């Protein structure tokens, strides 16, 4: 039986894992945004002029859905002010001037033998070390795992890395296989399940063989080789491929007894528990046709994009877009000064070459969007009703079930802006729901006054 899902596309993968992970020298100044996760943003714990050590906690919020942030270099805090955030907008950030000493902070000690078997200790450490979903969603991992205890019977580790260009997960598997398996074991213990399933696409056969040679069964892990297809790494697709279970619309993965944790997150858990190291660096694939020399670089959190481009030998062609993450689901950055954050798996500098924009796209009703939609939706009709502003029919055609994987737009020969439309429509639905709620509340208040 082949492990996969229905639909999906085969984009041009453009992967270059043969470029070994290099170390990108930390910049003279790092910009650490206080929001690098879904949930409450952190409040700075330091002041301008303070000296901070590498790995020192510099921002925190006691709210349950949050994750602290740490200094990625040692040096002096020179500014605490709103700075361009990779996801757009200006967000409060701590700017640290690098003293190039990398003086380590000893606040987090490696966990003891007993602690490594105690779910609570592991979960607390995940939170303390600022571990979030590093596949890109950046959901605080400790909160997610804790919420799944008792409900989840199968832990799934996502090693699909189905996005073109990105190699960080693959290189982590090849370079740190033992550590990775240990990290997965920790997440498994914390989740309170017997077995973890590690879904890896077959285009990483060398990594699958290497991991299998290390006897993953002793850590309670089974490697599941999967068909190479985008979006295999989507949460629902990954669950379907590994377990055959389908997450219902509006349901959380825990509802079908699954939790999905990314490869890089599991490795971060290893580092946090065995080495006492918080999330301050990750492998970032820096690529795209604008760059002279693309790299897979171990990059400190807070490295500005402009600096990354310089480290890759600069531009051979003028860039038109900075794409964060993979090109299928990645969004565009608006500034060269925005820094990498915990969820940044790739920074792609694209020129006009990648952009296949046409001025007057016209649907030819080929139906290719329907055959590739992994959610079984009908993008051609969703788009039609979207352009008419027909909310009732948009709902009937399940527009809110779209998770914006981009497969339909990718495959569209007419270059219709399908995913764009659905993302916009979902925001319109949210705004509509909020307006209706406000209206109902105002009416209720009026009633109460009477």
């Amino acid at each position: 039986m082949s492990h996969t899902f229905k639909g999906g596309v085969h984009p041009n993968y453009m992967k270059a894992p043969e470029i070994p992970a290099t170390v990108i020298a930390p910049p003279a100044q790092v910009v650490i945004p206080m929001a690098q996760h879904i949930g409450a943003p952190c409040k700075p714990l330091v002041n301008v002029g303070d000296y901070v050590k590498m790995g020192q906690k510099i921002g925190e919020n006691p709210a349950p859905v949050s994750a602290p942030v740490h200094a990625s270099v040692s040096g002096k805090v020179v500014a605490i002010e709103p700075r361009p955030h990779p996801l757009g907008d200006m967000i409060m950030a701590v700017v640290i001037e690098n003293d190039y000493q990398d003086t380590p902070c000893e606040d987090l000690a490696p966990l003891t033998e007993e602690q490594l078997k105690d779910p609570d200790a592991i979960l607390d450490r995940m939170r303390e070390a600022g571990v979030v979903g590093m596949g890109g969603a950046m959901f605080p991992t400790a909160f997610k795992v804790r919420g799944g205890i008792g409900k989840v019977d199968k832990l799934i580790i996502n090693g699909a890395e189905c996005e073109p260009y990105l190699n960080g997960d693959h290189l982590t598997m090849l370079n740190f296989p033992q550590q990775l398996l240990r990290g997965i074991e920790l997440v498994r213990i914390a989740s309170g399940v017997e077995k973890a399933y590690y879904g890896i696409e077959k285009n990483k056969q060398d990594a699958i063989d290497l991991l299998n040679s290390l006897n993953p069964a002793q850590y309670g892990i089974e490697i599941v080789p999967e068909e190479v297809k985008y979006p295999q790494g989507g949460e629902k697709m990954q669950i379907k491929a590994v377990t055959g279970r389908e997450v219902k619309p509006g349901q959380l993965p825990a509802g079908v007894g699954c939790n999905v944790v990314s490869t890089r997150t599991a490795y971060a858990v290893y580092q946090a528990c065995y080495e006492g190291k918080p999330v301050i660096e990750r492998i970032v694939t820096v690529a795209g046709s604008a760059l002279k020399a693309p790299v897979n670089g171990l990059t400190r959190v807070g490295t500005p994009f402009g600096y990354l481009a310089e480290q890759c030998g600069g531009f051979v062609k003028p860039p038109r877009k900075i794409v964060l993450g993979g090109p299928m689901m990645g969004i565009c950055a608006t500034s060269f000064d925005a820094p990498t954050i915990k969820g940044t798996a790739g920074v792609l500098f694209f020129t006009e070459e990648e952009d296949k924009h046409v001025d007057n796209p016209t649907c030819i009703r080929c139906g290719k969007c329907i055959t590739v939609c992994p959610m079984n939706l009908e993008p051609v009709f969703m788009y039609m009703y979207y352009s008419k502003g027909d909310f009732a029919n948009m709902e009937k055609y399940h527009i809110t079930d779209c998770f914006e994987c981009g497969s339909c737009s990718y495959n569209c020969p007419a270059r219709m802006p399908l995913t764009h439309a659905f993302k916009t429509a979902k925001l319109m639905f949210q705004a509509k729901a909020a307006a209706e709620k406000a209206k109902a509340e105002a009416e209720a208040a009026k009633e109460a006054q009477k």
Partner: protein
Amino acid sequence: MKENKERIVLDVAYQPQVRTNTDTRRIMLDVIIALLPAVAVAVWQFGLYPLAVIAVSMVSAAFFEWAYRKLMKKTNTVGDLSACVTGILLALTLPSTAPLYLPVIGSLFAIVVVKQLYGGIGKNFLNPALAGRAFLLASYALVMGRYAVPNALSGAVDGVTMATPLAELYDSHAMPVYYSLKSLFVGTIPGCIGEISAAALLLGGIYLIVRKVISWRIPVSFIGTVALLTLIFGGEGFSNVDWMLYNVLSGGLMLGAIFMATDYATSPVTLNGQLLFGVGCGALTVLIRYFGGFPEGVSYAILIMNLCSWAIDKAFHRHQFGVSREDIAAAKQARKAAKEAAK
């Protein structure tokens, strides 16, 4: 570097940031490529004249598309090659003796009336090439029914025109010896320019399926339905299997099922809807062949089913990922209960 960066204006767009290389133009080009084997057989059997018919048809179709859009101050869409595909398909449904004004008039009707008046590519509800052919069939019935003797049979029969295998099948209920199943498969028979060789058309169909331009659903369900129905009902003077094979290989079935019924704008996009569309085309074809006034029913079967595409798509609206059959049944039950309660 610093000054350089400031001059760069960055684009911002929602995902995806990359697109497949296959665009509309490439798809249309693939259809033209897939038709080349059929064109080659036409030249082999009817000489070079069919090439002139095809060329006039393609050029006039492209011209009418350009002229209409120019006149109406719309964007130029000749570059997407869809008009050329309409032109070549129309030419392939004409007899090899067709005078050159036929494809011009047919293209005018197909492009302007059927396609552009409804908004152009993707918006028309009838297959332009088939509608153009139907228009010509009604207006120029005599020239449209004159089928030249193919080169392979030039010594075997007298005269310059002859009856097609399909006409023999339904009129005289007997097959002349020179219409063997092999000759129908290879294409050494009289007929329209592009319809004579089942082998060449199947080759084109396989190319289109491999290139993912069309799916197997419509051609297989269409041809399969014709095969099944003719096998069951049979025909006078033939064994059922022979009758079925003659029905499948003669007439415009292959051309229609592979190249006409799969037209994007006029066929359903839902996957099960495509199956039903093919079955409908097949059933209507057999109905017209058995009981209709014309020997051939493929064109009208497809045109009638074109009109049903929209309704079929609506009926086959599918459920999203994660919704199981039990969920659908439960939802139906709940709706029923709510209705009862309301009463």
